């Protein structure tokens, strides 16, 4: 029934958009450097839209105020009609080159106005172009903190400040994780612990201090930005890592060829992610600025996967 409803919604979007259906589901673990050539691909959601699921989007490195950032935002609006996500995780670099009141307006509020008016909540993390005072901004929902936790359904989200991972923050993270009983634990922050980026690459110093905690307390998935492309990393020590840092900037061709880390890379256009946590499954779909689905798939909660492995 749900699948039928989803199909109807998709069909309605296609009908009103006057667009043709296109094949979806590019979950093969390969590198995709094909450019987005379509002017505007049809909206087509590959997520299951199960009842009671947690639905959200991910954007990163957005704050440019450019036409292309707006085009990504517009595509998010189109996808929200078919996949009504409730909130958006922001991977940092929320405001480039200045943080005046005007910057907040032109690089965030104006760009995402439709989503804001539709009561979509944004949860930000700080990037290396962001000032600490963003934590007081009402639309970033940081509650005055540089790092914070919130929950949605069976998912606990941890927004960390990877600009400044000091002893206090690590202690806070450990304390919170130690008592966390959520089925899914998802961390997001700006600098990627694993990356195939030519300009930056993996932040190994950060990885050295956070990964042991992620492993010890069962963090399932990690989202980061900083690199201006999309990359799905092959699971590292059992943890799923994603980079989604092309919401407002693109570093064309920056994913290293033949990187052993890459499960899927897309560096030929800007992009965003939509995700759905349904029970033990994390479904994801990655959409380019022009509406092309560049990656999609489903990941199983590690505890479930372990149980499945043990039962065989």
């Amino acid at each position: 029934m749900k699948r039928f409803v989803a199909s109807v919604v998709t069909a309605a979007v296609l009908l009103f958009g006057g667009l043709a259906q296109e094949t979806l589901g590019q979950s093969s673990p390969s590198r995709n450097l094909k450019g987005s050539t379509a002017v505007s691909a049809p909206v087509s959601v590959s997520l299951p839209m199960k009842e009671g699921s947690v639905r959200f989007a991910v954007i990163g490195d957005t704050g440019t105020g450019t036409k292309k950032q707006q085009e990504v935002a517009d595509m998010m609006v189109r996808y929200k009609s078919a996949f009504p996500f409730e909130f958006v995780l922001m991977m940092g670099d929320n405001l480039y080159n200045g943080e005046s009141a005007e910057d907040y307006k032109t690089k965030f509020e104006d760009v995402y106005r439709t989503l804001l008016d539709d009561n979509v909540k944004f949860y930000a993390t700080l990037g290396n172009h962001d000032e600490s005072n963003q934590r007081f901004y009402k639309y970033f929902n940081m509650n005055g903190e540089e790092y914070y936790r919130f929950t949605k359904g069976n998912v606990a989200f941890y927004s960390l400040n990877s600009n400044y991972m000091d002893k206090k923050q690590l202690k806070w993270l450990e304390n919170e994780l130690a008592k966390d009983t959520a089925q899914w634990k998802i961390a997001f922050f700006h600098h990627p612990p694993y990356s195939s980026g030519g300009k930056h690459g993996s932040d190994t110093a950060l990885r050295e201090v956070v990964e042991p905690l992620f492993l010890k307390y069962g963090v399932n998935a990690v989202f980061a930005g900083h690199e201006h492309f999309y990359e799905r990393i092959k699971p590292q020590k059992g943890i799923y890592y994603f980079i989604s840092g092309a919401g407002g900037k693109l570093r064309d061709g920056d994913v290293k060829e033949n990187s052993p880390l890459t499960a899927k890379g897309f560096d030929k256009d800007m992009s965003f992610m939509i995700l759905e946590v349904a029970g033990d499954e994390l479904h994801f779909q990655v959409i380019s600025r022009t509406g092309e689905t560049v990656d999609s798939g489903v990941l199983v909660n590690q505890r479930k996967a372990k149980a499945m492995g043990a039962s065989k």
Partner: protein
Amino acid sequence: MRQQKDHKTIFAIATAALISLALSAVSAVSCEAQTPQATPQVSARHKQAIATFEQRVKEYVALREGLEDKLPKLAEDSKPEQIEAHKVSFQNTVRTARAGAKQGDLFVPEIAAYIRLTIADEFKGRERQELRKKVLVEADTKAVALRVNYPYPESEELLDMPPTLLLRLPQLPKQVKYRLVGKNLLLVDRENGLIVDYMLNAVP
């Protein structure tokens, strides 16, 4: 569509199998994995330098807290105009109160020497080359003027502080932070963005 579903199912199963394999390896790894701890071998002379530095930082924090208390408090759901106005007022009031502040007031030679040693020890060999590449090449901080009581420009990049180094440097209260700009180390107020003090050539 059917084909897509099949692909997804295969992908999910394959992922599950891979993960279960990975997890068995991880369980061994995670038992050994621990947050790196600072391994300080601090001399009495350096302990004194750290204590003096921490005391001076505390004095700065007490001053700025007193000044901020007199300003309208920023709410957790502030508008951009309120954030901007608060920052400017805060900068002005601190700048006035510290009109005579100069480079080296907090980073006195003794603590500066200790910090240089700590950074040099933290970054050796290949890692030092990576750090130098990061601070000198990768990070775009050339436009940051090193002037006490002036703001770190909000339009400039903030280089992330290497976490392993942060664990070894003297700990700071939450109101201030270390920042690297080129080879120099800054002490910056977290909220008003003013450069409280800086030391040159911190990175070898």
